[in-house]
């Protein structure tokens, strides 16, 4: 087990290296000069050169890369060009809304989609099955921002049940926090629910054909016990895998959702940083997302052992 974890953590190094090189090059090879953005519309070219020198952007690309990687390895993520703060401070400030959004979405999606998937599998071909599968196609194909604006229109503007936008810190006003989390998590979870319910259905359907399900029925167990105790746990591994892969959707979706609902999270920060060509911030945030993705998937792989005693690392 320890062997497995260490090997997986070592495997993170090449992944991060590729991501780092890629992000670094993409930013520098696409047009747009951060110094010009910072200097504003009325700056002279001398002023821009001056700013560029201060930011270290006059150095050759590979020197910049070595300096950046060196700093990163020492735990120094650099200073934002635009926000006049260290990137570490910036992330610390912005992480709470994103984390809250991700957790709420996950809870919401799993709590809804797993039972739906199981029911759809159990009643394969029924009206319920078709409704769930139809919804999942819809969930895949409608973009997040459309769903977001629709929900705002219905629940915030027409019905007036929930606030339109904004964020309240969890420590400041818990109720206000929850109120403002409902619509964004709902929006973000739609695609997720579509994905997980589909996989749950397929996975449970496959397990229902297994011999041990027949054995369970031959024991005289009720359908509920057969389904929940025998089928679901055996179907868990593919479901978990997809939840892990879906974290990527979550990260991508957070960017859009936070913009629609005006949440001051990492997704918005990424958008702002990209628009203002804030290299250090973009690089750090993207690297952080990759680390999170890899670590979550490692945790999911480890969690397989809880569900299936045959899996040993």
């Amino acid at each position, binding site marked *: 087990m320890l062997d497995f974890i260490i090997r997986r953590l070592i495997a993170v190094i090449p992944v991060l290296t590729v991501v780092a090189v890629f992000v670094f090059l993409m930013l520098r090879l696409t047009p747009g000069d951060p110094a010009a953005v910072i200097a504003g519309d009325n700056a002279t070219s001398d002023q821009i050169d001056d700013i560029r020198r201060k930011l270290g952007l006059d150095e050759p690309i590979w020197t910049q890369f070595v300096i950046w990687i060196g700093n990163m390895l020492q735990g120094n993520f650099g200073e934002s060009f635009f926000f006049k703060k260290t990137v570490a401070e910036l992330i610390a400030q912005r992480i709470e809304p994103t984390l809250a959004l991700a957790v709420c979405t996950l809870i919401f999606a799993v709590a809804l989609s797993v039972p739906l998937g199981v029911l759809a599998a159990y009643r394969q071909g029924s009206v319920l099955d078709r409704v769930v599968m139809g919804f999942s196609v819809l969930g895949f194909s409608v973009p997040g921002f459309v769903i977001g604006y629709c929900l705002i229109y219905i629940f915030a503007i027409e019905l007036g049940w929930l606030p339109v936008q904004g964020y309240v810190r969890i420590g400041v006003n818990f109720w206000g926090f929850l109120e403002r989390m409902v619509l964004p998590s709902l929006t973000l979870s739609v695609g997720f629910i579509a994905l997980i319910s589909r996989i749950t259905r397929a996975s449970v359907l496959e397990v229902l054909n297994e011999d041990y399900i027949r054995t369970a*029925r031959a024991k*005289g167990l009720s359908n509920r016990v057969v389904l929940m105790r025998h089928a679901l746990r055996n179907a868990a591994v593919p479901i978990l895998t997809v939840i892990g892969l879906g974290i990527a959707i979550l990260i991508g979706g957070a960017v859009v959702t936070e913009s629609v609902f005006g949440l001051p999270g990492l997704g918005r920060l990424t958008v702002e940083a990209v628009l203002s060509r804030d290299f250090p911030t973009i690089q750090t945030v993207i690297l952080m997302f990759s680390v999170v993705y890899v670590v979550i998937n490692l945790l999911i792989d480890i969690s397989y052992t809880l569900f299936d005693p045959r899996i040993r690392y």
Partner: protein
Amino acid sequence: MSDTKRPVLEVRNLSVTLPAGADRVHAVEKVSFTVNPGEIVCLVGESGSGKSVIAFTVMGLLAKALKPTSGEILLEGENILTVGETRLRELRCTRMSMIFQEPMTALNPVMTCGQQIDEVLETHTQLDQAARKAKIIAILDRVKLPEPERIYASYPHQLSGGQRQRIMIAMALVLDPVLLIADEPTTALDVTTQAEILKLIAELQTLEGTGVLFITHDFGVVAEIAHRVAVLRWGELVEMGPTEKILSRPEHGYTKMLISSVPSIHPAHRGVRKDGPTVLRTEKLGKTYSGNAFFQKARVVKAAVDVNLDIRRGETLGIVGESGSGKSTVARCIARLIDPSEGKIFLGDTEIATMKAGKLRPHRRRVQIVFQDPYRSMNPRITVGDSIIEGPMNFGLKREEALARARGLMETVRLDPNSLDRFPHQFSGGQRQRICIARALAMEPELLIADEAVSALDVSVQKQVLELLDEIRVRLNLAVLFITHDLRVAAQICDYVAVMSKGRVVEYGSAEQVFGAPKDDYTKALFAAAPGRHWEFGKFAA
């Protein structure tokens, strides 16, 4: 319990219809039979005879597409075709229980064995946890599992196939049902394990007076365990009677044909030739599997050790052994489907054990394999003709020539040459295996390896394929390496036999010698375990 002689199970005029579009209307048609307390009734038949359908109908576990349309199934007088789902659930495991063919997959892999038996007691009794546990330990002990406490806490994958089948039996019998339905319970097990499980079922059944409905295709098992036999064909009951009578004086032609298809365990006198040139010789052949781990000590499995074999032209060498004995590993090494770790393989004069892939290619033609499962060893998306000519064309034959050869081979394996443009699913299992043989022969090999090539076939089809293989061997003067777990088949087709156990050849000699006077203890145990070895099948009394 046996106060009266009322049968525990009475099936009267049972018909089950197949869904529209199947090859026949009824899966089971107007079948009637009874099972009395303390009696073992065998339902025998080939695949598609409806024997399993009957078993599942009794349990109420039939697939939704199949519908019982007429008749009655009386379990101690109660018609279970008319009772509701709730009552059926109450009856399962309390009055009637079932054990299945595949002990490997019949248990839930993510629950401990104890939990899985506990579920039965939890559902059907009011016992508290301590009482339930005591009862489970007692039944585990009764099915002769060692260390019941440890087994209770074990997951299925930690147990062997035989042990898992014992768990299934324990689960089925824990509430003393009056009827036990056993659906091919020993078919997936090794012969020595099979003998133990059969003995266990017979013992427990005698002790409790349980009625057993035993489903099998194997007349050896029938001879071993049955009191009465019912023979089924295409869903109809052909003949029923006491075992002794059915085996020695069958009346129906089908029963006679079926029983005389069972290969004898006494080797046929084939007259061993010793003159042909050696086609294949292995010298200290070995295969070791080792898992590699970073920090732990690597696990090493020796699948084959020091295997020395030789086969001459026109000769059949059989390798017999139980699962895990290394017989298939040896075959795969010889065909270089896997790379041997030690030793030498001489194909004629060429040493191929260590040959590099590129150099090996021209020699590939010389060794061909026919695999066990004809349903999975052919690409379902290309025609059988294309399957057959693919190999020869890879070796440079023109399409027309290859097709001509394929047509000739179809005749050799007694199939219609005009069916080359059909797809595998349009053929039966036996026909597919013939096509696989034709595919192997198309390469004009010197050595034909048959890896359990007749094990998946019904006994009557098996007989035909065996005869065909032998005929081809004689006609083409081929060397054949025949891998099988079935001693009866080996006795009939092999000139020489090598018995393998745990990766080693424990006995090697002519078929007469090995079968007639086995020397090794393992070989003796293997023969002693063969079901129905006292019966000479097919020698009917007038």
